[in-house]
């Protein structure tokens, strides 16, 4: 197991390096630059800015400087948000996104898994149909529609909930619903189909035949096997959700990391593009390793090597 983890970490470093290198050269191939605006700034000012941030150096040299700095933990200054370092931006905004995202993932798990199980147990009954319809909607309706509908009904018309910011628990309700809508639906469907699969297995029949009580069959024998696909999905989903959603954060005015991914690319903020990309890549890789370990815990048959 330890050996496995060590191997995965090594592999992770190589992957992150590859992601970073690809991003670095790709973003520099795209036309445009960070110091452009509708109004041309004087050539002197542009030159001074480029010199200040080292953009006047050849591309390869910049690449090696970046890699060596990054290894030392220095991800540079944001080129657009003058006076802020990339690390300070991530440190300031990630916790906000992580809080909203984390709650949303919890909600999705708490709703998705039981509802999926119920749908499987009541297969073909009214409840199953209802859950199917709801989950189809959940997958088909994009988050900006959910956000707008929530905002319009609960926020503007009924004035039940505040529409912006994150200052009280009430502020969390709408963003969390919007963010957990899709994953809840997806988990429900995953859970339902894998549960149905497991319920049809011979050992389930055996357990039933031996007279194990209904609830225990479900909890001890079926659940454990059925939950594996959900675990696979939740790992990367968690990484994406805690780094923030561009749409949801924009609509509910949440000062999270989501907007920075898009903003950095639009503004050609090279250092911030690199920083956020590497950060997201690292999170996804960590989550994948965690998923593998959870696999092992849930299903002892799986051998990690």
């Amino acid at each position: 197991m330890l050996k496995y983890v060590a191997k995965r970490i090594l592999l992770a470093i190589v992957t992150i390096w590859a992601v970073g290198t690809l991003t670095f050269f790709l973003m520099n191939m795209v036309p445009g630059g960070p110091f452009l605006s509708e109004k041309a700034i004087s050539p002197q000012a542009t030159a001074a800015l480029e010199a200040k941030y080292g953009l006047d150096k050849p591309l390869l040299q910049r690449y090696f400087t970046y890699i060596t700095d990054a290894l030392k933990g220095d991800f540079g200054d944001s080129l657009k948000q003058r006076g802020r370092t990339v690390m300070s931006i991530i440190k300031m905004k990630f916790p906000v996104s992580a809080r909203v995202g984390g709650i949303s993932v919890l909600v999705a798990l708490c709703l998705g898994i039981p509802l999926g199980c119920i749908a499987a147990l009541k297969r073909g009954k009214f409840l199953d149909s209802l859950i199917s319809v709801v989950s189809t909607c959940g997958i088909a309706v994009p988050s900006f529609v959910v956000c707008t509908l929530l905002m319009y009904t609960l926020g503007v018309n009924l004035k039940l909930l505040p529409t912006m910011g994150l200052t009280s628990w009430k502020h969390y309700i709408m963003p969390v619903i919007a963010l957990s809508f899709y994953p809840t639906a997806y988990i429900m469907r995953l859970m339902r189909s894998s549960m149905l699969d497991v319920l049809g297995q011979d050992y389930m029949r055996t357990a039933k035949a031996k007279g194990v009580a209904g609830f225990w069959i479900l909890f001890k024998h079926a659940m454990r096997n059925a939950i594996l696909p959900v675990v696979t999905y939740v790992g990367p989903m968690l990484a994406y959700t805690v780094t923030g959603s561009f749409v949801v954060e924009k609509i509910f005015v949440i000062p999270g990391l989501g907007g920075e991914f898009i903003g950095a690319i639009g503004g050609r903020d090279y250092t911030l593009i690199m920083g956020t990309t590497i950060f997201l890549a690292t999170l996804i890789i960590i989550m994948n390793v965690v998923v593998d370990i959870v696999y092992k815990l849930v299903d002892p048959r799986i051998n990690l090597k």
Partner: protein
Amino acid sequence: MKKRVLALLLTATMILGLTACGGKDTPAADGGADSAQTTTESGTDNEDAASTETSDGEKILSVQVGPDPETIDPALNSAVDGGNMLLHSFECLLAVDEDGQLIPGQAESWETSEDGLTWTFHLRDGLKWSDSSDLTAKDFEYSWKRVCDPMVAAPYAETVLGMVAGFDEAITGDLDALQVVAQDDKTLVVTLKNPCSYFGSLAAFATLSPVQQATVEANGDAWATAAETYISNGPFYISEWVPGSHILMSKNPNYWNADAIKLDGIKWHLIEDDNASLSAYQTGEVLMIKSVPAEEIPSLRENSDFYVDPIIGTYYLSLNTARAPFDDARVRKALSLAIDRDYVANTLMQGTYSPAYNFMGPGWVDTDGSQFIDNANGGQTYISEDYEANLEEAKQLLADAGYPDGAGFPSIVYSTNDQAYHKVVAEYLQEAWAQLGIDCKVDIVEWASFTPMRRNGDYDSSRNGWVGDYSDPSNMLDLLYSTNGNNDGKFNNAEYDAAMELSRTTLDAAERSQALHTAEDILMEETACVPVAYYNDFWLQSDKITGSWHSPYGYWYFMYADIAE
């Protein structure tokens, strides 16, 4: 049976979905009337919303003028939303009043030498920073030199200080060469290399706000990123800043005119999304919003809380004069005259722009203080408002240029980025130019790639626009000067350049005015670019806000505002 239930359920949800979608349009129409009610209602709501903030009896005004500013370092800012923050937290030597006239700011008086080269500013007594330390002329000297520092790389350095003696040396690093000298604690003397009649406007320009040397040197660029280190000298200071959420400004008790400030604070909500900002306004969480969704404008237009006010700037098209057939002034003029400006501004752009029959719109100030537009072309618009006649003239011009009914005219490309009304205007241009028999293709380019493409002259025709920094007409007329960095159409006309040169050197106000008008005459006759519409700001503002105003620079002045109970 079960299948039928499922099918029924599905149809039910689909119908629900459809009505939800369809319903969106219909209620939007009376949504206008609704929102008028909500604004009146919001009176009570506001007290609720406000009371959470004002539990200790403080009067805090909540507004929205844009998303997170990229920077609020006076030297680095080049955007209007950052400018609004600077306007309320800093004060320059001079200020601009409600009528656009220069008034004393940190300087209580100022004078210009006979030759127009020496400007002397006398500071008020007892000026202080927001941290209660003393502010002297030395601080201005430091701040202005800092703007020239290549390590600061201020985008507006040349615009605001390019005419000061020693600028060329200062911009390469020899800061002390800049002829800005604090003679004593209360006197700042500036020596120019050539006369600049509008230097007073620059002395009121946010880039030249004073910044506190000790704070800046201790924190580097980061001084302007946190409330604790953001020391200022204006009517308010920043007491809390949550990036992406809000900037809270509190009244600065050390400001010389603090007695005139009625608000205890201003909360700037940094909302990026138009719909989010409208919701916040409708629920009464903010009393004024700048970001209004375009699709809501038809229903909001008639409301008394919807405002449209001109800013100095023009939406125009650049035609690449370095490429045939745009090197022919007749072709350029034909393309210009084929555009129905009234339709573009009032129908396509929903009246949020005004039709531009001149290049220089309302708000630009002539040398005698009158409106530049009133004196242009003898008081007539350059382009006639009679569209039918214009179209006939356009066809004739095109025939004269050798392309009767567009025969033999090459297919052209119109490039634009996709934001706001840019795409609908592009589609309209295709239609308008097709009337001349010209085939135009539209090329939508991503923003960050669009600017360099246009600047490199790598296009046929493209969208362009300019919003003025200060109200002297040279600020926009300079765009067509042959070597100007923003001369995207590569217009090169010796007479035009000569007129602009004269406007820069002459000391005689009448002669200068004449030169500037001559320049616009040439620009319009030669169709150096194609003005389409004048910019306006449009916004929603509750009538509970009193004593605020909007300036043609695109700024809102809330410092002397009050909230009516």
